[in-house]
């Protein structure tokens, strides 16, 4: 028989065992072990709601199922579920939360549930006692062989009230810890994002500049040297435009990973944005040979990366880098300056041809200055467009009949020096000046077409084609704007053709298709310029109502001698035939090329072999001559001589 003192002793010990740890599980474990030992229990389980039970008038509703369980010993999930199910059944109104729910001496009014409890006890061969833990859950005591004395059942009520308070405090503490951890994690994430590129997780420009300046300072004080490699991917824009940004992003990630694998532990790879990466090689001992050796080694590894196709999602892409290298401290001890110099070297590398690396030299900055000068002058020139003019390169068929002409822009700078479109068109596109310039080109070309329309044109002459940049073609309301120009110039729309590059087609497929269809409806044909140089050359052709493919001069060149080029031309012609498209070969410069193309069943040509681009007045003269001489078909060679081909 247990005396009163023993009862008080046990109650005291149990009470003092509550809250020995602020963490929930250690707190419950310490309490549970005292309970097990003093009450002679077989097991204890504590079942907690993540959220509190909601009180709704007389009824109680659980906002969420019981999902936090602590038990000693570890219990099978099915046994825990049995207990939870039982408790849920018992927890029906009316419920006196102040009293335990137990099988031997039911204190609750739910007598009809008694058989359920007895069934559980029979099935599990143990006695079960359930006590609510206020509104946050309940505790289950299991005992084997003999029941707890009733006096203990009463004694435990205040104990478990205290336990509920302690559980609540621990839960709140843990919630607080979770919140603090979440804040810390968010803070870390923000700091990380501030210094890293989201896509590749490489250090971003901000981080690069901080680290680079530190390296430069350290290098200066410790007599160390290093190099900055500015890497730009060639033709990345074409990949993005033709295969989509997702593929482009995958490629950037793959390149980032590959670059990281090539560097030494102390080096850094960063992404500045777009397709621009920077590698900083630092902490290299003084001595030119050592620096050159390390740089050469890394450049070799980078070349190796790009020597093979790179996996970008499902695609295997062949890309190449243009790399500018600036050494430090030789080429700068200021991070901004060093980066700019490497950038300059990279531009030179790009200009020299793809897949090259160029070391910075002081004179390069002067070259860049020239480019900036071009940009500046272009901006001024576009204001009046007085220094621009249009020239026209005629197109012929195999019988020497003139079919049309391609309009080409020319620009003389303020010194009267001709600037190549290859130089100023990219600048115009990069700076956004192309929109304005494109408008002028179209207005000028339409005005010339208006003039041509008044001339007696050869019957074979159909149209003047105008190159439209992707930027321009994808402008909202492009078609409406073009039609306004046509109307204003009072020309027959059929006399105008549009030449688009492949990238212009793919940028926004739906809009592009709609625009081409709208132009087609007006009788304005669309050609694909530089065909074969883009990425999805074949996949989109049947998706757009285009009329003509213009084979890029890169494939026409030496087609008579270069079996590879000839095969490509042959394939393009076959493809065009199967799709019912015209084919125009660009850049035909020799009789042999013409003859070869003719034999390959390509019957429309443009190039120096037939005619150089002509001033508009010369074109008009040619029209007049041909109109009068239409029956006498012009032989290409004679045309060639007539129009001052420099090759002859």
């Amino acid at each position, binding site marked *: 028989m247990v005396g009163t003192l023993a009862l008080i002793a046990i109650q005291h010990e149990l009470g003092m065992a509550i809250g020995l740890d602020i963490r929930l599980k250690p707190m419950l474990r310490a309490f549970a072990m005292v309970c097990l030992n003093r009450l002679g229990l*077989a097991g204890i389980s504590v079942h907690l709601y993540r959220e509190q039970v909601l009180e709704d008038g007389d009824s109680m509703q659980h906002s969420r199922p019981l999902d936090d369980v602590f038990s000693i010993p570890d219990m099978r999930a099915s046994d825990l579920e049995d207990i939870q199910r039982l408790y849920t059944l018992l927890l029906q109104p009316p419920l006196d939360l102040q009293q335990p729910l137990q099988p031997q001496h039911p204190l609750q009014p739910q007598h009809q549930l008694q058989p359920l409890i007895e069934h559980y006890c029979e099935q599990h061969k143990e006695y079960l006692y359930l006590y609510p833990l206020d509104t946050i859950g309940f505790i289950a005591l299991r005992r084997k062989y003999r029941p707890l004395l009733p006096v203990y059942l009463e004694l435990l009520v205040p104990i478990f009230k205290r336990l509920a308070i302690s559980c609540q405090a621990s839960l709140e503490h843990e919630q607080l810890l979770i919140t603090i951890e979440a804040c810390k994690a968010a803070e870390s994430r923000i700091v990380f994002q501030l210094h890293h590129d989201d896509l590749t997780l490489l250090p971003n420009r901000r981080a690069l500049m901080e680290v680079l300046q530190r390296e430069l300072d350290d290098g200066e004080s410790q007599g160390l040297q290093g190099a900055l490699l500015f890497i730009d991917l060639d033709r990345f824009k074409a990949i993005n435009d033709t295969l989509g940004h997702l593929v482009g992003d995958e490629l950037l990630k793959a390149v980032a990973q590959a670059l990281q694998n090539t560097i030494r532990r102390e080096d850094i790879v960063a992404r500045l944005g777009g397709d621009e990466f920077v590698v900083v090689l630092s902490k290299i001992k003084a001595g030119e040979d050592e620096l050159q050796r390390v740089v050469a080694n890394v450049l070799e590894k980078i070349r190796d990366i790009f020597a093979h196709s790179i996996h970008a999602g499902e695609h295997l892409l062949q890309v190449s880098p243009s790399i500018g290298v600036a050494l430090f401290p030789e080429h700068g001890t200021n991070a901004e300056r060093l980066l700019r110099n490497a950038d300059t070297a990279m531009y030179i590398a790009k200009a020299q041809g793809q897949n090259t690396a160029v070391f910075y030299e002081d004179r390069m900055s002067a070259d860049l200055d020239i480019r900036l000068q071009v940009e500046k002058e272009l901006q001024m020139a576009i204001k009046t467009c007085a220094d621009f003019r249009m020239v026209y390169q005629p197109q012929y068929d195999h019988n020497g009949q003139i079919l049309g002409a391609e309009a080409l822009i020319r620009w003389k700078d303020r010194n009267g020096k001709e600037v190549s479109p290859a130089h100023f068109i990219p600048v115009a596109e990069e700076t956004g000046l192309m929109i304005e310039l494109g408008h002028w080109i179209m207005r000028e070309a339409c005005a010339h077409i208006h003039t041509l329309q008044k001339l007696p044109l050869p019957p074979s002459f159909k149209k003047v084609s105008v190159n439209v940049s992707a930027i321009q073609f994808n402008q909202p309301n492009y078609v409406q704007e073009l039609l306004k120009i046509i109307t204003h110039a009072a020309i027959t729309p059929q006399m105008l053709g549009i030449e688009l590059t492949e990238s212009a087609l793919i940028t926004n497929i739906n809009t592009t298709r709609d625009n081409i269809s709208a132009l087609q409806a007006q009788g304005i044909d669309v050609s694909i310029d530089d065909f074969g140089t883009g990425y999805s050359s074949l996949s989109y052709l049947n998706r757009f109502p285009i009329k003509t493919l213009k084979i890029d001069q890169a494939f026409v060149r030496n087609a008579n001698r270069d079996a590879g080029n000839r095969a490509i031309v042959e394939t393009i012609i076959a493809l065009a035939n199967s799709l019912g498209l015209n084919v125009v070969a660009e850049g035909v410069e020799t009789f042999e090329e013409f003859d070869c193309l003719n034999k390959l069943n390509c019957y429309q040509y443009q190039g120096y072999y037939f005619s150089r681009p002509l001033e508009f007045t010369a074109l008009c003269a040619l029209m007049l001559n041909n109109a009068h001489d239409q029956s006498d078909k012009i032989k290409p060679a004679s045309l060639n001589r007539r129009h001052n081909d420099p090759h002859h």
Partner: protein
Amino acid sequence: MSIAIKTLLCVEPSVTTLQTQLAELIAAGAQSLMVLACEDNGLTTADWNLWLRALELPVFGGVFPQIIYGDQLLSTGVLLVGLRIPIEIHCIALPANPKTDWHQQLHDCGFDSTQNPTVMVMVDGLSSNIENLLEALYSNLDSGSDSRAVGAGAGSLSFTSTPCLFSAAGIITDSAMLMLLPAVCYLGVAHGWEIFAGPFLVTQAQGNQVQSLNYKPAFGVYREAVEHNCDARFDNQAFSEISQNYPLGIINADGDLLVRDPITLDGNALVCVGEVPPNAMVYLLSGEPENLIAASAKAARTALSARPVTDNAPTAFLFDCISRRTFLKDQYPQQLAAVLGQFDHPDTLLVGALSLGEIASTGCGPIELLNKSTVIVVF
């Protein structure tokens, strides 16, 4: 069918004699081996390691102050018990670091009692953290079955740490051996000690040290209570000589007393075998030889009465606290006889040891480290 296939007593142990007897057990069909050795066994650590590491059978067991074989209490020799069942053995180190995650240790060693209703536990009786391990062990027992744990603390009566557990890796110290047996066991636990003073509130305690009782230095309270109730005087006698007769008892809800043996002092703190939790209520206990003997007999009866009726001879393991032997002195054989007297099967095998702490699942569940108690497990 008895789980022991054959038992051999090696009176003059050596590596050679052990090997010979082992061969005999293997020939008889032994699948695993239990070894109970007296502290005075004549073998060096190197000898044990040589023999143990060459064993082809799973082995467990330990070195004890004395061992029991039938009605004999032996101070020398080694007992080899060949078991007819295979056993699964896990060895867990018992470092002094209280922050060790015992649950993780059990998980890492692959402990799983699902198919094994009996776990025999042998620990280095002088290790730290035995109760933490037992707590984790209880949590890891298969809750769906009636798994029981039983065992004892091995070691030397000199209370100095020496290698005392037998494992396949050799003879080891500061460890616990867990043996999973695919056989149901029946337990009897008793001590016979009774309350003579108290209760006292444990107002300060740390692990196995009781620093204060009723907010006063523990030794002062203990000394006053003991000297008030008997003629012994701590001024005249060594602490342990008196304290072995007056253990502490922690009462539970069923009125059962968990005995805690104060073996020495640390300043004014009572140093016990096993933990005394703070805020517990403790009593001072005393014993009469006849009560202790009767209790041991009752433990045997309890175990036997739980065992289903069968013609098979029982195999019984007896783990009895060494302090009971010290207390009973020349009356100890009477206790052994009283225990044996409960077994009426003529082929009963009783083997055991005098231990440094006993281990048993209590009637209602948890596994406890007992002091001054008799634990009998019958298969």
